[in-house]
């Protein structure tokens, strides 16, 4: 079955990203396909590579990046939500004259249309948030 995931909260404050990650792992283990993981609202903060948790804590961002690489996950960060919250890739930095980028590997920035498309193309869409 084709699933998509919507993550509406950032890492560490809410459990949403942890639950979404555990769900995604379980869905993949069961042989389901993940069409897309879409990050919206503060969820875009899951896509900053500058995250540096203490060594004895999980690295929520790196965990998503690794899973994206291993399972060819499409991790999409909403552009409008990302711009508001300072999540920037090369293209956005150039367009908006920013002197740095912070988008983590495996993530890409795109529009809200990607969420609607995920709803259209997937058999199931599950939301995690607060």
């Amino acid at each position, binding site marked *: 079955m084709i699933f998509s995931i919507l993550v*509406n909260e950032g890492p560490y404050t809410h459990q949403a990203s942890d639950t979404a990650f555990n769900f995604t792992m379980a869905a993949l283990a069961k042989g389901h396909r993940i069409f897309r993981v879409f990050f919206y609202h503060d969820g875009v903060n899951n896509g900053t590579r500058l995250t540096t948790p203490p060594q004895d804590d999980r690295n929520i961002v790196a965990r998503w990046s690794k899973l994206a690489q291993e399972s060819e996950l499409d991790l999409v960060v909403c552009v409008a939500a990302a711009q508001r919250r300072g999540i920037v890739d090369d293209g956005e930095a150039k367009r908006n004259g920013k002197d740095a980028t912070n988008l983590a590997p495996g993530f890409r920035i795109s529009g809200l249309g990607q969420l609607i*498309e995920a709803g259209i193309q997937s058999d199931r869409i599950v939301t995690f948030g607060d």
Partner: protein
Amino acid sequence: MSTIKKFLFVNRKAPYGTVYALESLEVVLIGAAFEQDVSLAFMDDGVYQLKKGHQTKGIGMKGFEKTYGALEDYDVTKLYVDQESMAARGLTPDDLCVPVEMMPRADMGKLMEEQDVVLSF
């Protein structure tokens, strides 16, 4: 992309205190642009989103009451409001900024069952 799905956006949070109401509207408009069959439901504190007369100058935030009125231009005309939530907050349809269909909670459940995609903000 010719598939048309029934999308229901369930709004259960008050405006301004958190960003969910505003960013939900943004998804609704994109859903309409993709020519999907879009409906909106307002329940719990979400009914406060439609309370008319937002004056946001004093809090320094952009008001978005007008966007609800503009939904019609995007062919989003199915707005359902939970009767019980309205009653619990002392609100009547006259207090709202747009025409809506008042719906008892049990019917709201049936509406949800008819959808292909339900996104709740």
